[in-house]
């Protein structure tokens, strides 16, 4: 049948032009590898950047004279706020212990004190989206109004820095990925186009002999998808190898690298993308096929 012929013809041509086909395969491979390597790093940067807001906290100093029950009321009210992720009560005694830690050997200077002069406080972590200077300003203003609250220490500027760092990282990620992806796409396209020019004569002859578009296209598309599949598979193997090299070998030195995440879907996604690229590439290269 025609399908049998298409497959045979595709594989014959894969073999006959193995040299050029290997080059196209490497193009797909390199392209996908470059894109996924960069995505991998940007993704992990994002993951780390996303945890930054967790480091940010607002300290609410409570009035010294509050009773235990009143303190619980304040905490409950704070907990109910939609912008609060979690909170932690720090009693006077805990605060004093912290200070003693900071003073190190010299902590004996505090021993003469008859009474603990510190306030008890509540440390609030905000939900991610509220870590911006304006939100933090508003929230600390609201909390400052609450009865029983003596002072709020908020560090709006730190919140703003975290917020902007995240946003810029996203922007840069998008710019870099866009530039590099369009580079890779250009190159793949040009490879395919050149490959097509090479076969143009053959295609013209087939048309003159009465071949339909499907008959002409089929072997090219099969060829393209095999090249794409192999290229994509190699890219998946490459990124996997890179990931293990980095996490296993380098994380011995730097534990941070153990945290790097390689989304598993990529191992299936890359070959599939390869096939898709191959098919789309061939289809575009052959073009409209005027009769």
């Amino acid at each position: 049948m025609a399908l049998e012929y298409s497959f045979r013809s595709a594989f014959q041509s894969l073999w006959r032009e193995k040299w050029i086909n290997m080059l196209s395969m490497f193009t797909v491979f390199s392209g996908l590898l470059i894109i996924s390597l960069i995505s991998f790093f940007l993704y992990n940067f994002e993951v780390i950047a996303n945890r930054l807001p967790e480091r940010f906290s607002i300290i609410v100093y409570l009035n010294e004279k509050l009773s235990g029950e009143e303190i619980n009321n304040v905490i409950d009210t704070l907990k109910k706020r939609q912008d609060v992720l979690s909170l932690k009560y720090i009693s006077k005694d805990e605060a004093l212990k912290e200070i003693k830690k900071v003073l190190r050997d010299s902590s004996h200077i505090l021993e003469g004190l008859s009474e603990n002069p510190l306030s008890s406080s509540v440390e609030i972590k905000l939900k991610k989206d509220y870590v911006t200077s304006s939100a933090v300003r508003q929230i600390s203003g609201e909390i400052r109004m609450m009865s029983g609250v003596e002072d709020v220490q908020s560090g709006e500027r730190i919140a703003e820095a975290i917020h902007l760092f995240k946003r810029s990282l996203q922007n840069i990620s998008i710019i870099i990925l866009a530039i590099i992806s369009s580079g890779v796409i250009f190159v793949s396209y040009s490879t395919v186009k050149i490959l097509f020019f090479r076969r143009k004569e053959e295609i013209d002859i087939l048309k003159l002999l009465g071949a339909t578009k499907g008959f002409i296209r089929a072997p090219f598309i099969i060829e393209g998808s095999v090249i794409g599949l192999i290229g994509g598979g190699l890219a998946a193997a490459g990124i996997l190898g890179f990931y293990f090299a980095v996490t296993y070998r380098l994380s011995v030195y730097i534990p941070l690298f153990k945290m790097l995440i390689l989304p598993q879907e990529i191992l299936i996604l890359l070959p599939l993308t390869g096939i898709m690229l191959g098919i789309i590439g061939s289809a575009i290269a052959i073009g409209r096929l005027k009769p």
Partner: protein
Amino acid sequence: MIAFQNVSKHYDNNIVLKDISFSVQKAEMAFITGPSGAGKSTILKLMYMEERPDEGDIVIGDFHLASLKASKIPFFRRGIGIVFQDFKLIDNLTVIDNVALSLRIRGVSEKEVKTLAFTALKKVHLRHKADNFPKSLSGGEQQRVVIARAIVAEPFLVLADEPTGNLDSNTALDIMKVFRGINISGTTVIIATHNRELFRYTGKRVLKLDGGNLIGEEVG
């Protein structure tokens, strides 16, 4: 069965065919002759639609070429076997696969393909070159492969452009026998040639072309 109706064709400011009208009957064998550059190949190209006429219409069987939809062209061409002047063999297919291509395009089942292709090759005395690639054949051998490819699918119309330009006269006569054979079994055959030997004493109609004008007919 084939009719040119006031057909003109030009390239840029070079008028190649001027108001050509003629017709060829079903199962007829006809020749087109004329000096180099007269327009012989252009007439054939118009017939298999590599080119489109500027004016006039061409009717071939049930097809009116001037108004034929692009999507129908492949099916139209499958009725025709063409011997191209510049061969148009596919370099990276073997001789037998080049011939078989004609059959595969027409959807002939793989079982029959090999048998039919070998039969056609045998007719042009090239059975022994089946597994060679075109580039390793002599000029005349390549030309005979093209002829085998044109006749293998038993088209209703064969268009042959200078089919013996690279053949010695004995081989040329052999090839002419092949054309006459398929013509007798009902195929229309149109041969463009500058070689008067081919049509001499055949009793067939010869259209004489010069500078894009049909300057007369004779009987070979």
